[in-house]
């Protein structure tokens, strides 16, 4: 079954007469340079940064829901990657790609324009988007990152602290996957 591609037509409407910008003509938006956000997030508390990211994630989920409707539950991995990735790109959060390692879901986001708290913002956005789309509370654990990209391992919220400890202990990517799958019946 082929998945419909993300349609970005009309996603952003510029009303130059009013001087307004909206998502899909409904939600007011603001085009803000990343330098202004970086200056803001550099001194912002963690909960403020996570709240900002959650707002972005909910908007991304609303964008997908507008285009998929009730078929969201039947979307495959590629379909979710296509639409959720499109919504992240529309918000300017970067390039989203999803991978499956056994039963583990891994999300790679690259090209993040933010310089300050970029990992926390995209992680919160992803968690919020998955919650709004599929009503599942998940937690993204950054297993690797750099100044413009991050690799997130999606796990249950109660497992996240354990996986974060493994990452801090320096386990390799293969060892993390092995530990995650250990004790789980096929």
């Amino acid at each position, binding site marked *: 079954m082929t998945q419909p591609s993300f349609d970005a037509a009309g996603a952003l409407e510029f009303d130059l007469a009013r001087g307004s910008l909206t998502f899909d003509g409904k939600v007011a938006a603001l085009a803000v340079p990343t330098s202004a956000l970086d200056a803001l997030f550099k001194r912002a508390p963690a909960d403020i940064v996570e709240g900002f990211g959650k707002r972005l994630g909910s908007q991304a989920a609303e964008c997908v829901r507008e285009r998929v409707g009730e078929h969201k*539950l*039947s*979307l*495959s*991995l590629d*379909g*979710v990657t296509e639409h959720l990735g499109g919504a992240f790109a529309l918000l300017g959060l970067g390039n989203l790609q999803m991978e*499956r*390692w*056994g*039963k*583990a*879901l891994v999300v790679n986001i690259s090209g993040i324009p933010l310089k300050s708290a970029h990992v926390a913002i995209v992680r919160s956005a992803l968690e919020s988007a*998955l919650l709004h789309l*599929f009503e*599942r509370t*998940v937690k993204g654990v950054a297993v690797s990152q750099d100044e413009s990209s991050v690799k997130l391992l*999606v*796990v*249950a919220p*109660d*497992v996240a602290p*354990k*996986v974060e400890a493994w990452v801090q202990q320096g386990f*390799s990517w*293969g*060892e993390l*996957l*092995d*530990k*995650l*799958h*250990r*004790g*789980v*019946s*096929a």
Partner: protein
Amino acid sequence: MSAQQKVAALEGLLARIQANRALPRLPYVASPVVPAEAILEEAPAPAAYVPSAVEAAPEEIEADDVELFDDEIVEVTVDSDPSADAAPPATETTDFELSFSDPADAISEPSPSEAEANSTETDFSDVSTALEPAAASDAQAAVAGAPADAQDTIEEEAPASSKRAKVTPTSMSEALAEAASQAEREVPLKTPPPESGPQAASPVQIPAAGRLPTLPPEPAEEQAEVAQAPAEPVNTAAAFAALEPEVATRAAADANVLRIVGAATAFKPKSFLELLDATLGLSRGE
């Protein structure tokens, strides 16, 4: 010797020369005589030709033989050769006289036999060696009873077959320098054999695994220096045991990857929601 004695000696020499000149000449029988005119026409003498000292004028001989002494003059008595005493044939005598009296005969050098036979000319030639050509001196040296100087000159000449030139020092300083250089060259260059002599090679032993070969005992002084240094025991077995092969670690990682890949192949979720539920159930079984 005073000047008067020299003059007397010279006068005596001149008298003998004049007396010898009156003696009959030996016949010239070496080769048929070629007319002088023919020689001059066919092969003219070179312009730089210098007449031989044998044919020098008597005045020059006297001027050059001033330093002649009586004891240095050797009178060579010509043995009475029957052939020489006998009267030569008329034709040969005529030819000889013609060739001798002819001025062109000056360009023809006398043969050794002739020089040997003309003993009167060799009497004074030994004292004027510098003025005579080499052929004349050789002929005189061949004569028995030649002066010692002439014999020394012959002996000092390098043999014709020798390829090495005989270097004769010209002064005492050069001779001393040469002797010193020869003394330096005579220093033996061979190193003497070691006093200890040849040493027998020790048998080679292959050490056991994990053990170092035992070293030969060191002298007492070196052992004292080693004792002062901080002791660092070397346990090679422990060191090897602490090392893990890097290949084994990679093999375990590869096994994990294969295991995960196998699980990923077996698990095929139909939807993203199924995958999301599976990933949320990871690591909860421990």
